[in-house]
């Protein structure tokens, strides 16, 4: 009873989020039905390609939420958030690689193909355990989390803020990209990890597996949204916003600003890692290109486009920009980067609060603000 009233008040406070969750749920129900039950010949049939594409968008949306938490709410503009996404992706990729077993080109039951190719005789220590799914899942969260914790601890303790922090996050992802490009690192070098066969025993080529992955991504996005929403709605969330608006004020009120920053940064990195782990089995490849600084910057554009400081805004931005990316790169391959640049300029100049800000302005113009009463 009490729980119900809690949920009710929760939705009243967050209408946009409620709509987003409802739409997400509807998509998660309708898409599998139209894929599996509607025959191929019907115009309503949703191809498996589309399902996978949607799943990819949803994992990007989760990544956008994670950046929005640190940038929109805490004011830390991370230009290296794709690094955490890619690390989560690599952890999942390593599991998928081990699942290939002796079905690789070289038929080695233990070593992935690229290791055989490099004449390696045994599995490096950091590949141990990745044959277990539970281990990979832990690593998906642990590796980005620990990296973010160490990085954040050093950066925030030294009170590195603003553009300097952005630059070193950019350097972080660039350094990781260079490292992962090296064959000696043992992550497949230039080619990354690919040619996955199955996950938990189900073939990745099967429609049903694809649908399941799509659904898992949708659920993860919904959960990620709800948990993040609870955090920003809590008093700790308001402290995070306070740190963004007036860091020294928060400090002189007795808040350990560094711990709050570190905590939200680490949580966000874990979320990004999970998004990466959901992305990899759907696209079937992870390579060092995912660390490229351009990816992190694109991610910032998604969030800016949707509306930073609003969680569902980040989701809208991620899906919209990626949909247009799919469209543009198909229709006019050369034009995409120009379109992206133009989008960014338009958003920063005309829509400082993104699409969500625009919607809110239209809405508040339509109706007068309601009478407020003191508590």
């Amino acid at each position, binding site marked *: 009873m009490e729980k119900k009233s809690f949920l009710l008040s929760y939705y009243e406070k967050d209408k946009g989020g409620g709509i987003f969750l409802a739409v997400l749920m509807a998509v998660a129900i309708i898409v599998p039905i139209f894929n599996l039950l509607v025959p191929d010949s019907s115009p309503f049939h949703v191809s498996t390609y589309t399902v996978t594409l949607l799943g990819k968008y949803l994992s990007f949306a989760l990544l956008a939420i994670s950046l929005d938490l640190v940038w929109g709410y805490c004011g830390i503009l991370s230009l290296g958030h794709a690094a955490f996404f890619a690390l989560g992706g690599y952890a999942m990729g390593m599991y998928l690689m081990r699942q290939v077993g002796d079905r690789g080109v070289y038929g080695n039951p233990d070593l992935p193909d690229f290791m055989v190719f490099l004449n390696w005789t045994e599995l490096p220590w950091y590949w141990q355990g990745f044959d277990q799914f539970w281990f990979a899942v832990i690593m998906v969260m642990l590796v980005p989390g620990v990296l973010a914790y160490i990085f954040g601890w050093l950066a925030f303790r030294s009170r590195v803020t603003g553009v300097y922090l952005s630059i070193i996050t950019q350097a972080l992802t660039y350094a990781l990209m260079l490292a992962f490009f090296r064959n000696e690192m043992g992550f497949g070098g230039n080619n990354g990890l690919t040619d996955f066969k199955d996950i938990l025993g189900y073939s990745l080529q099967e429609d049903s597996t694809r649908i399941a992955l799509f659904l898992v991504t949708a659920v993860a996005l919904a959960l990620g949204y709800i948990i993040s929403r609870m*955090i920003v709605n*809590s*008093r*700790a969330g*308001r*402290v995070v*916003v*306070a740190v*963004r*608006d*007036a860091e*020294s*004020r*928060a*400090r*002189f*009120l*007795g*808040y*350990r*600003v560094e*711990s*709050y920053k570190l*905590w939200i940064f680490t949580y966000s990195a874990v979320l990004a890692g999970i998004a990466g782990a959901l992305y990899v089995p759907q696209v079937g490849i992870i390579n060092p290109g995912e660390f490229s600084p351009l990816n992190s910057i694109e991610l910032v554009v998604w969030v800016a486009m949707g509306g930073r*400081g609003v969680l569902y805004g980040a989701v809208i931005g991620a899906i919209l920009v990626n949909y247009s990316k799919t469209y543009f790169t198909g229709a006019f391959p050369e034009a995409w980067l120009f379109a992206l640049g133009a989008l960014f300029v338009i958003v920063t100049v005309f829509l400082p609060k993104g699409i969500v800000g625009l919607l809110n302005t239209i809405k508040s113009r339509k109706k007068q603000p309601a009478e*407020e009463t*003191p*508590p």
Partner: protein
Amino acid sequence: MNQLDKLREVMRRDRVFDFVATREPVASGRLDTRHGPILYLEGVSVSFDGFKALNDLNLYINDGELRCIIGANGAGKTTMMDVITGKTRPDEGTVFFGQSIDLTRLSEPEIAQSGIGRKFQKPTVFEELSVFENLELAMDFDKRIWANLTATLTGEQRDNIGEVMTTIGLLDSYNVRAGGLSHGQKQWLEIGMLLMQNPRLLLVDEPVAGMTHQEVENTAELLTSLAGKHSVVVVEHDMEFVRSIASTVTVLHEGHVLAEGSMDDVQNNEQVRQVYLGA
């Protein structure tokens, strides 16, 4: 008897070994004002790139006192505040809060939690949060993350915020975004946040800048009413305002205390007239 004298020699109170002396640990967390002053600054010096912002500053603030600090630009007023609140570490000298809390060893949040509140020169509030939320965050509670993830306000705490909103005259705008307030209202909101924090010592930097005449009067009234229960240190340029509230005035000049006393004493002081009042 001889033996006894020898024993007495060993036991002399002024010559005990360090480990015998039961010193209270630094920052025991308990504020001790038995000896009168709540704040001790002794021989404090701070220099920035050779410029001595504070030069052998000695200042004592009594418990419950309302003290005004005046001084020309660059006299070291804000640096002094920075030293007390832990933003700047002194090169030399000691800063004690009560008898036992060594402020030079504490971080800014620790100092704030030990009971020192500060209002900045430029009104600094959380612009995107509402007036109510600003005051809520200033409240004196556990400031750690895990506690705040699940924290909700009790009725008593709500009443407390309501009282402060009445005091600072912002009760009607409780749900207004703090960024949308006027300059004077922001000043008051920040003072309100100090009240929520309920500190023993308030450091108030230029509280009446940008306020209307009526607001200045109200601020004077508020600060005077706070003295007694809290100790208040006000840095201000507005001499009218200082005259209206202060019993004791300290004049800083080049990082050093030039004069201290009542407003009349200070204004009649020859040195002060020369360097500051210019008359």
